[in-house]
């Protein structure tokens, strides 16, 4: 006689449950990431953004999703149907599967392999296949050109990205994602402070990897209309879209895990900053208060009834969450995921912010930046990082000092490489 609890404790079932939770949460995060992007961009651009569906457009992602699902499915004449169908699936699969290796909290991850980071890189590199196949299967010139550009860009910046990751691995001494976070806890410092150059390279390469402005050439609508997914519509398009935003979350998660201490709270070893653990309470409390304030200031009347109701429900929910978080065990359990998501959101905000600020590189400029600047600097950084570590191991130098010296030397090389550029 097996009880329900025993079934739930089977390793396979447990993994399945975690996969389900991660997948659902991720889908929701991605959907609302699109909403956040539209709202933040709108704010930057003195507009309102979505306001109609739900209070402040909160239901807009759901409406968009429904619309995309119900749209007519168009396959262009002469397209390779099977490949056309396969391509978005590959891309989505690649970007979602990689999340199974990300530690969201101390004890919450789908799996923790001893070569975790390598697998994340491996799985996310599969996404390129979807892009190139999608562009080819459309049987049209603009998508093919977009796909070729996209592939060239992704492959080039993957090199710089991987080299940036290597220096974090050197510091941590492990490839396990959770192990890297724990190494940062042990060494009492986020690796971003030990390896600022690598962090910067990772950040830039991550933007290029996700085809975001200023590296959004594959989708440069003023040149290539919409890049590799020009011919895609409806559900298939939404898959590409989903994959793109999931990839954004993924690279942010990798960067956070490797360089910003993953699920650790800021300064995890400083005792007197312990009050920071109440941050989730504050965030939810603030959200609840805002909802109630909006609720009272919302226009009354029949047509606003549902919107007001929703605001009220949201406010109540947030307030209840804040109160629930005051219960110590819940508070402790929520710490990891809260800080992880908060840091990831910081990254995502930067992505959106850049999109509102920068013009776009030209293709040759992008490639030159990648091959003539990013990759050499990344390689030099790895070399100097190794030198710094050896200095501290063999000669007993202060570890932070030698690493900072290494970063300084890298910066000198970078300045030499960047000379004479406008």
């Amino acid at each position: 006689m097996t009880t329900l609890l025993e079934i739930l404790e089977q390793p396979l079932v447990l993994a399945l449950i975690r996969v389900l939770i991660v997948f659902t949460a991720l889908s929701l995060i991605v959907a609302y990431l699109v909403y956040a992007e539209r709202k933040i961009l709108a704010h930057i651009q003195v507009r309102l953004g979505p306001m109609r569906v739900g209070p402040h457009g909160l239901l807009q992602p759901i409406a968009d999703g429904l619309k995309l699902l119900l749209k007519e499915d168009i396959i262009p004449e002469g397209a390779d149907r099977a490949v056309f169908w396969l391509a978005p699936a590959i891309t989505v699969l690649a970007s979602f599967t990689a999340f199974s290796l990300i530690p969201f909290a101390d004890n919450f991850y789908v799996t923790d392999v001893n070569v975790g980071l390598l697998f994340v890189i491996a799985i996310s590199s599969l996404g390129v296949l979807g892009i190139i196949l999608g562009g080819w299967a459309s049987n049209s010139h603009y998508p093919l050109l977009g796909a070729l550009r996209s592939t060239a860009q992704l492959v080039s910046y993957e090199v710089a990205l991987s080299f940036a990751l290597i220096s974090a691995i050197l510091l941590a001494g492990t490839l396990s994602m959770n192990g890297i976070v724990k190494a940062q806890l042990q060494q009492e410092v986020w690796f971003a402070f030990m390896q600022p150059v690598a962090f910067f390279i990772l950040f830039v390469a991550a933007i290029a990897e996700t085809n975001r402005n200023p590296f959004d050439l594959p989708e440069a609508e003023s040149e290539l209309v919409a890049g590799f997914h020009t011919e895609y519509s409806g559900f298939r398009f939404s898959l590409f879209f989903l994959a793109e935003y999931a990839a954004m979350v993924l690279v942010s998660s990798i960067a956070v895990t490797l360089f910003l201490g993953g699920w650790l709270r800021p300064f995890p070893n400083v005792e007197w900053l312990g009050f920071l653990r109440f941050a989730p309470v504050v965030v939810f409390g603030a959200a609840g208060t805002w909802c109630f304030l909006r609720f009272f200031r919302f226009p009354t009347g029949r047509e606003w009834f549902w919107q007001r109701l929703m605001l009220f429900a949201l406010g109540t929910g947030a307030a209840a969450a804040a109160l629930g978080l005051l219960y110590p065990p819940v508070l402790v359990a929520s710490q990891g995921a809260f800080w992880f998501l908060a840091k990831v959101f910081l990254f995502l905000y930067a992505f959106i912010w850049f999109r509102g600020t920068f013009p776009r590189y030209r293709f040759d400029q992008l490639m030159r930046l990648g091959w003539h600047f990013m990759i050499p600097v990344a390689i030099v950084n790895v070399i100097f990082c190794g030198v710094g570590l050896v200095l501290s191991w063999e000669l007993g130098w202060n570890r932070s000092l030698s690493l900072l010296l290494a970063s300084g030397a890298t910066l000198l090389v970078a300045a030499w490489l960047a000379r004479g550029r406008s």
Partner: protein
Amino acid sequence: MEQTPSVSTTILGADEVILNMGPQHPSTHGVLRVKLKLDGEKVISSECIIGYLHRGVEKIGETRTYAQFAPYVDRTDYVAAVSNGLGYCEAVEKLLGAEAPPRARWVRTILTELQRIASHLLWLGTHALDIGAMTPVFYCFREREEILKIFEKYCGARLTTHAFRIGGLLYETYDGFEEDVKKFCHDFLSRVDEYEELLTENRIWIQRTRGVGILTADDAIAMGASGPVLRGSGVKWDIRRAFPYAAYDQFEFDIPVGENGDTYDRYLVRMQEMRQSHRIVLQAIDSIPSGPIAARIGKVLKPPPGEVYHSIEAPKGELGYYIVSDGSTQPYRLRIRPPSFVNLQVLDQMIRGLLIADVVAVIGTLDIVLGEVDR
């Protein structure tokens, strides 16, 4: 449409490839079609195919009376309708031998300069959008909206204004006109600083525009370029200064010029021009003379037989009207010299040897309006 050869040969560089850009391409600013001969992504030569928006405006002019034709000119360069109207009205006035009274000339100057700012704002927004900067277009439209509101209050229309009449103005300025303009001017300079903060020092913007689409001063003159395209190449030529019209001889303003004649210089020139327009408007708004707003020219316009050419400095360059009168109520021949049309012909020279992405930037920097190119 030509059959475009397969992309594969494009990339392997076996042959030259012809690629059609437009007429529905999002960044050809309307219905321009550019036939590009490419080597890989590099442009070997190009050919502009125009006329998709041809409406026969000049021919229509021969079948309308002078006053009836005035609204038509608004529809050539439809983002700078006020300037078109000014050019046409002054040309007919010259033909009639009449002159608008000072108050009318002052108001015309103010509105035309506001229109120049509005046109440049639209150019800046779309140009930046073509190069991938998404935000400036919204900022620009915010200020352009203020200008269009002033137009709407003044004459009831925002885009195709038909603001002026032959011989002067139809409407007296509305109550609070001066306050509105001053309020706009008060904020405007800081707003221009805001745009420049986003773009002028931006490394990506500089990389995308500096050294791209170079036009030498000699070439610019030889090809008949005018306006910011000419001044960006370093030629200090402005019809407002060379042959003053309206009330321009009364105001102080500088003529900004570029040095290298590249896209970045033309950008800087237009930004400076907005500041100078602001300066002119500020001077004019404080000194609007009182008096009549229209000259007495009678209801039926019958200019004496003869011909006249009158040109003004429209936002995009020299906008000229050549009118031949046979003494009847309708022009015998009416010809518009559109700045966009003439400026467009330097495109081929500017984009040779550049990449496709640069073509988009260069089309943007020429600031063409297809309504004016095709008429």
